[in-house]
């Protein structure tokens, strides 16, 4: 399409979403603070104003290009408007730039520089002082410009909607529900809000200082590096496209005092190997299908939060980070003759949720510190050591060897591909074909014996994951194994990756990772002889008792609404001896008769002998109001409950307890 831009004839893409995007492709980047090509158009910052002949001054993000349109992108009036908008934002912005997490990488700061703003003509007005450090995602609303990028990323891309706008006018704020801290919200810590925040309003907790503290305390520091880190850390170091960055990182970490540096990809091979056997077993038994991967902690929390019914379908194999942490503390410590208490395991991750994962109750103590790619880059830069001059060094053995499969965990499809690679050894596969159903959803058909076929799906983005889950739930989709990566494009798009962290950058990272993978000589996890050795030495075989102890974990239903349970019929017994029944007394359950069930249960516990070990509690909102009334028996949720239904489940538990 031909249009006239600033008097020049310009050919633009006919299918461009809007003038802003169209002009970006021909080299004119119109200033903007609230535009994301990944989400719906918001049109709030008003920075991207252009002058259209016959239409006056309008925002280019909402403007559809048409043949022959005449646009001016930089008139004195537009300049004045943009400058005014910047000054307005700056007037109420916390301008502690030097101590801001985004110092040097802030879009607002960048524009303030480019527009040469040296004084703000408007009064300094203080905005909210909400500072939320309840979770690993830090919110500082004094730096928020209300562009809504985080809100849209969270809702539209991730379908989590943990944050939204509240209040009006100058008082408007981005907050979790009830203005709680993020720790008390449904946030899954994927960090996509951080990735898209143009200022320092959303950042993540930095643990660099903790690392130096651990070093100083004399602990043995053992590092591990995730695959996706080595596709992105280059961006911060002026080493774009460097394929041997991993080796340089190993060299760097050793220089600053790490005693060993292992490769997370090794554990990825191990996880894939274990998970493939788990999948095979489930197929044979025909249970807990489809199997969902569980190496992405954001996705795991998403399941626990929104789809607790599917928790059993998650692979119980730990993530590579946690698996490797366990191996180090359990086996390596013994072999090296170090007390595991004296080891500090540090993992370098592209991901913010990994910080959360390491602190999960079920997994705590296996990995001591999780640092993101950004934190790693900061450490390197502050050391003054230029990685360009560092020779690559190999990862330490035995957990330093990986196959192509393990390395490809860093991007979408990596886990599924690895599992299939392992399966190839176990069962006859005659044909594998993969097709991209839509962006973010890839379907793999695996032909096995007797004309049978297995279906695997690799999904990225939690919004897409939700779509897939809903299709599975409604029976519209038949699938045997599903890989989910919470972030777009997989781990390479994690919330801990360098800025900018948009689709374009992620595609570049995917390419680097693909090329790096290609350099690996081993293809399938089964070829990883160090991994085989590990089985021979300790784990015996996949899904063995030992391997269950070391490599597997558990998940839990997460209630979003906090508040204590009410003891209705408390029992002064040890936890093991009793069966706990929680009856939801929230509005929806109550109105559908949960109180009657509660009365029946009390009656039952008082009269019937078998029920003497029942501890009855009242609880509020299990977040399953659509299927109320809900009753929870020892953590198992009974939906659309009736007294009879609950009784049956209880009898099962009671007999188990007695046995």
């Amino acid at each position, binding site marked *: 399409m031909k249009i006239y831009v600033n008097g020049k004839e310009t050919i633009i893409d006919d299918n461009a979403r809007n003038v802003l995007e169209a002009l970006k492709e021909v080299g004119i980047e119109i200033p903007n603070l609230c535009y994301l090509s990944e989400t719906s*158009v918001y049109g709030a910052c008003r920075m991207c104003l252009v002058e259209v002949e016959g239409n006056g001054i309008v925002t280019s993000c909402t403007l559809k290009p048409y043949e022959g349109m005449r646009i001016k992108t930089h008139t004195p009036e537009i300049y004045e408007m943009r400058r*005014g908008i910047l000054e307005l934002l700056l007037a*109420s912005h916390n301008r502690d730039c030097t101590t801001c997490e985004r110092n040097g990488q802030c879009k607002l700061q960048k524009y303030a520089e480019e527009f040469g703003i040296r004084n703000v003509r*408007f009064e300094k007005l203080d905005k909210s002082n909400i500072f939320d450090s309840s979770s690993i995602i830090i919110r500082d609303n004094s730096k928020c410009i209300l562009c809504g990028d985080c809100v849209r990323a969270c809702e539209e891309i991730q379908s989590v909607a943990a944050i939204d706008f509240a209040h009006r*006018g*100058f008082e408007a704020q981005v907050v979790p529900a009830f203005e709680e801290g993020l720790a008390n919200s449904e946030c899954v810590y994927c960090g996509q809000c951080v990735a898209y925040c143009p200022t320092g309003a959303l950042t993540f907790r930095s643990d660099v200082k903790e690392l130096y503290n651990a070093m100083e305390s004399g602990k043995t520091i053992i590092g591990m590096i995730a695959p996706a880190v080595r596709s992105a850390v280059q961006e911060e170091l002026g080493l774009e496209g460097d394929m041997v960055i991993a080796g340089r990182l190993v060299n760097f970490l050793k220089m600053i005092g790490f005693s060993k540096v292992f490769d997370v990809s090794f554990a990825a091979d191990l996880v894939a190997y274990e998970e493939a056997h788990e999948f095979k077993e489930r197929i044979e038994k025909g249970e807990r299908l489809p199997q969902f991967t569980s190496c992405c902690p954001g996705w795991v929390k998403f399941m626990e939060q929104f789809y607790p019914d599917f928790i059993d379908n998650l692979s119980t194999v730990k993530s590579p980070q946690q698996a490797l942490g366990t191996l180090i503390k359990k086996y390596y410590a013994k072999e090296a003759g170090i007390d595991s208490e004296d080891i500090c395991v540090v993992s370098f991750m592209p991901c913010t949720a990994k910080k959360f994962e390491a602190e999960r109750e079920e997994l705590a103590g296996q990995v001591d510190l999780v640092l993101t790619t950004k934190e790693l880059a900061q450490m390197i830069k502050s050391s003054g050591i230029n990685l360009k001059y560092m020779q690559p060094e190999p990862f330490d053995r035995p957990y330093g060897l990986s196959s192509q499969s393990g390395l490809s965990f860093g991007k979408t499809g990596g886990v599924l591909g690895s599992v299939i690679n392992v399966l190839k050894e176990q069962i006859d596969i005659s044909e594998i074909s993969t097709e991209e159903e839509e962006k973010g959803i890839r379907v793999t058909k695996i032909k096995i014996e007797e004309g049978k076929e297995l279906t695997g799906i690799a999904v990225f983005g939690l919004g897409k994951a939700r779509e897939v889950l809903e299709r599975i739930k409604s029976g519209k989709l038949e699938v045997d194994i599903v890989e989910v990566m919470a972030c777009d494009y997989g781990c390479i798009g994690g919330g801990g990756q360098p800025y900018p962290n948009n689709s374009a950058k992620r595609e570049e990272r995917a390419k680097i990772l693909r090329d790096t993978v290609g350099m690996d000589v081993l293809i399938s996890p089964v070829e990883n002889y160090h991994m085989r050795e590990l089985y021979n030495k300790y784990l015996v075989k996949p899904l063995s008792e030992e391997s269950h102890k070391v490599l597997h974990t558990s998940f839990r239903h997460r209630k979003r609404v906090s508040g204590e349970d009410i003891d209705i019929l408390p029992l002064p017994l040890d936890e093991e001896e009793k069966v706990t029944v929680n009856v939801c007394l929230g509005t929806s359950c109550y109105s559908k008769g949960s109180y009657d069930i509660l009365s029946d249960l009390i009656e039952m516990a008082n009269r019937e002998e078998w029920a003497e070990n029942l501890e009855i509690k009242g609880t509020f909102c299990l977040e399953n109001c659509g299927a109320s009334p809900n009753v929870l028996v020892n953590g198992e949720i009974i939906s659309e409950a009736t007294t009879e239904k609950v009784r049956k489940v209880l009898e099962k538990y009671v007999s188990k307890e007695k046995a």
Partner: protein
Amino acid sequence: MRMFKSPLEAFKYIEQQEEIRRKKLEQLSVYVCVGTGCTANGARKVYEKFKEVLNERNLNISLEKLDDPDENNNPVKKTGCCGLCSLGPLVKIIPYGFTYGHVKPNDVEEIVEKSLLKGKPIERLLLTDPISGKKVEKLEDATFFKNQSFYIMDAIGTSECESIEDYMGRGGYKSLIKALSEMDSESIVDTIKASGLRGRGGGGFPTGFKWEAAMKSKGEKKFVVCNGDEGDPGAFMNRTLLERDPHSVLEGMIIAAFAIGASKGYAYIRAEYPIAVEMFNKAINDAKEYGFLGENILGTGFNLDIEVKEGAGAFVCGEETALLASIEGKRGVPRPRPPFPAQSGLWGFPTLLNNVETYANVPKIIRDGVENYRKRGVESSPGTKMFSITGPLKLTGIIEIQFGTTLRHVIEDICGGTSNGLKLKAIQIGGPSGACLSEEFFDLPLDYDTLKSVDAMVGSGGIVAITEDRCMVEVARFFLDFTKRESCGKCVPCREGTMQAYTILEKFTQGKATYEDLENLEYLSKIIKTASLCGLGKTAPNPILSTLKLFRDEYIEHIEGKCPSGMCTALKKYVINPDLCKSCSLCARFCPQGAISGERGKPYVIDQEKCVKCGICFEKCKFNAIELIG
């Protein structure tokens, strides 16, 4: 009630109702206005009292009427707003036409005795014509009444707001019958286009074009929405209309839905208008029972359901895209247009959105035809407009005039001029989005284009009279205080800009502003006006821009430390005239701040740093020695 199976059946019934109403108006009855204004002044108590008294005295009034349990035949009737809210509660005695104001329950016995039974007016309760200053027996005789052009406000004082039969008695729903039986989508849309009807909500966009766009838009389903989220401070035309004649709005909506092919409608009415919500809900239910609404309307196969959505009090929800978001259950925040609601509105479906008053015009246009409709108003702005009048005028409330009437006519010939004896300084028209006009504009005809040409707007129709004792900077500050609070907070210019503009205006009223502030205020106004996302922001600086243009001197004087009207207390200064001070120390003893000091024999002095300008010393001084400067 019965459900009509065909347009013809309904038509015949309506003709009967018209006959009934004609007869009814010849019979003895009492109409009590129960609009919000009169209700607040106790109209419902007056209504109950009438019922009670008439019941007690049933021997004196024709028996057949009182014995009839049907509410419609009760001689006491609830009527909708007459517009004279400052005079309420209003009572009208039919067939004599006596109209009484400020009626109290205690007056009821007397009214029944004298007016109802003997046909005599009660002098003391009659309304005073503010122009002639004389008492008038009948509302229709008053100058302020004669100088208006009632059209949308039908049957003042005798319309029964709760009765669909009374609406039919006034020819109501005949337009719907005509539309359903004689017209099709195109001809209805063409009629509305030809009528020149323009949106009464503020912008004055040609209604017919909106309808045409909605009609032509393709969609699995379509919606009609009525915007009753009237939020301008001091504006209550829509409330009045919904309360006094809900069926006229409903009929307009049904015709619109038929024209564009909508099957579902929403009336978005502020929750702060409980009577309007109640009236409209009743109207919907009654219309359903007669078959004017619901499935298979009048047996024509046309289906339409309409429900009321109550707005939760955000001014910005009067903006169409924010309103639609609010109906969808989302945060009421505007979104960029295009797409316009007519293309993609509620849940992405084509949606026709019009103001309450716009819809009320529709049945009239269909009934009277384009040519007759256009006889009112002016070429570019045909028809009439309701305005709500507030400020120190002899008559305030709701008026209806033809477009093209001058402001001066409104102020002098309808409202009777100022009530406080002061000179009128400015007229603020169009609410917080509107402008202040100074006297040189009072003779301009009120219509969309003329007002626009002087940077003002009809807006939803609020008119505020401002006399010379008011400070124009304070007026601007007042409106910015409103818009800054009601800004949704989405776009930067409006969210941050209105706050900054307010801050600067506050500096002016506190005497702290500089010439640089004046410059910044102008710069800000320009940014907010040009760069804001929605109408709220784009028009928010209008009160500033218009006062800066027409009353710039007042801004300058504030910078120089004076508020010419004396309204801005911060700029006032109390000083003691040493020549008059007798050093009695009275002022010092009463000063709550301890700001006054002195000693016997010497004049006392006020410490300006400590003084909070409460004025107590001024009141207490027996020698007039304390003077107010500024």
